[in-house]
């Protein structure tokens, strides 16, 4: 013991003192190594010709072959286009609506009513995408769906919405709106209740009407949060969630509804082209990461507290 310097032996003693804590931590450490860090290392299959028998360590290296293939593949062009279009439409529709919803709800003076609407509006957030798809398929069914029953009552032919490519993007965007409107408004509603009542009172004294109060007091009061949400919404530009796309798109509507995440699933898991699909996934993560870093940079510029790191 004499040859260990005092600082080091104190640390060893500390570690010894905390040994049971480390033991409690062990399952989590194993979990993160196995299920997070090993898959991170597994990204190298994107640069290999992965073969299940040879494994990651034995498979042949092919450099950037799959990435070159990616940019020449016509499938990928369609998938990229769908992804960017669907997420752009989604941002355009689902970014402003929760703000408007929160602003209008904030005007309601009847607290019971306000709370009921809030509670109801959060509900769809807790429903899975397959159930959302189930509700949509039921309503849009060409035989018994309520929408087509109305179309038929008006004397038109029923439309099989789920199988017609021109409706796919609209269905995806509107279902995101329906599902997340209430939940996305929570932060705005909370921020609006924090806006001082005195501001409104003095505005009323100055003769401001309801619309002017919203424009000059409510909106500036939540502008920070609006900005942050916008920046992070834009950082998701190359990402349409797997679950929503997989549940709302069928082969008949691939041309307008197949996005990167469902494409990776199809060629990777179904067709077992592990290396090519990893390359697609990696390219997407890379662009998403750049967008997140850029968004975070912008957020920090805009407001110190808004950045995530």
């Amino acid at each position, binding site marked *: 013991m004499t040859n260990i310097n005092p600082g080091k032996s104190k*640390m060893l003693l*500390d570690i010894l003192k905390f040994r049971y*804590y480390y033991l*409690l*931590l062990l*399952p*989590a450490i194993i*979990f*993160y190594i196995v*299920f*997070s860090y090993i*898959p*991170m*290392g*597994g990204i190298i*299959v994107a640069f290999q010709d992965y073969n299940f028998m040879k494994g990651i360590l034995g498979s042949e290296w092919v450099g950037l072959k799959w990435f070159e293939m990616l940019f020449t593949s016509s499938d990928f062009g369609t998938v990229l286009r769908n992804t960017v279009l669907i997420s752009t439409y989604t941002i355009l529709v689902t970014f402003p609506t929760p703000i408007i919803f929160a602003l*209008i709800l904030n005007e*309601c003076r009847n607290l019971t*009513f306000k709370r*009921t*609407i809030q509670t*109801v*509006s*959060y*509900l769809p957030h*807790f*429903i*899975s995408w*397959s*159930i959302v*798809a*189930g*509700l949509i*398929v*039921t*309503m849009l069914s060409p035989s*018994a769906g*309520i929408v087509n*029953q109305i179309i038929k*009552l008006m004397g038109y032919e029923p439309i099989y919405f*789920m199988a017609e490519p021109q409706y796919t993007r609209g269905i995806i965007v509107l279902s995101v709106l*329906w599902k997340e*409107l*209430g*939940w*996305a408004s929570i*932060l705005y509603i909370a921020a609006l209740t924090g806006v001082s009542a005195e501001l409104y*009172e003095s505005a009323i*004294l100055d003769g401001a009407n*309801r619309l002017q109060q919203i424009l000059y007091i409510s909106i500036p009061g939540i502008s920070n949060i609006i900005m942050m949400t916008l920046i992070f919404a834009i950082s998701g530009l190359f990402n349409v969630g797997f*679950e929503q796309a*997989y*549940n709302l798109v069928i082969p008949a509507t691939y041309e307008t509804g197949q996005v990167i995440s469902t494409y*990776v699933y199809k060629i*990777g*898991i179904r067709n077992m082209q*592990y290396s090519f*699909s990893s390359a697609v*996934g990696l390219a997407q*993560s890379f662009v998403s990461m750049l967008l997140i870093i850029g968004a975070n940079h912008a957020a920090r510029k805009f407001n110190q507290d808004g950045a995530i790191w």
Partner: protein
Amino acid sequence: MAKSISLKRDGFSPFMTLIYIIMSLVGIITLFPFFITMVNSIAPPEDFIMKDIILWPSRFDLSYYKLILTSGSDIFAAYKVTLFVTVVGTAVNLVITAMTAFVLAQKKLPFRSQITVFIVFTMFFNGGMIPNFLLVQKLNLLNSLWAMILPGAISTMYMLFLRNFFMTIPTELYESAALDGCSEVNTLIRIILPLSLPALATFTLFYAVDHWNDFYSGMLYISDYKKQPLQVYLRQVLYDATVRADPETMQKLLGDGELKYEPPSDAMKAATVISATLPIICTYPFLQKYFVKGMMMGSLKG
């Protein structure tokens, strides 16, 4: 003066009426899909043939539920899988999350910040779909129910929230317990956890709902249709032409005259959707205050 101002803000006006109408419409549009699917799932077959539009069933008919919820049916098997994954998965989640959060809440733990960075790093970088799949394949977990539990054993975000909560508990409370010879595990079980019951309830709900709604891991790791979870089964049924019913029950219902016609596939699908949704809808009114509390604890994933 102040009173007259508040009266003016509360008073009746066309503007306020419009606001209440718009908000009521949002509420109705949110609930309508559940309502109409429910109606489709209890309307008798003759309604589907006779009526131009079904807004209310001519009689309540539960035969579709009888057809899909019998013990031999596919949805029954999927239900069992999802129940197992939800119960066991949430238990695993809670044990590991509480242990990890407890240790990381110890301000004096050597290497605490390094370990935290090691964990938080995984929130920003991950291998993605295919490397995760290859790992689960190598671990021989494909088509095992554990593939829907182990890869998600901890949610880093929930763990960090719980750690933050644990850190608000004054350290004197358990330091004196340690002096009295209380072990670390005992401290966690006897002192920390009882003080954290509301927080634990919140995270139990988060984890349970995540498992119940889990589609992704079932889709990725389970190809054996007998082991499909509810959400994956549902996706498959939606775009199928017919929903497979237990033939024996079908014969019985048709023979008894309870069903006058073969059940329409739209009604069968609607009944399947409602069967998968009902547990969430029924518990939601009681749970939602916890969810909102959790959301406020640190703005959860959107």
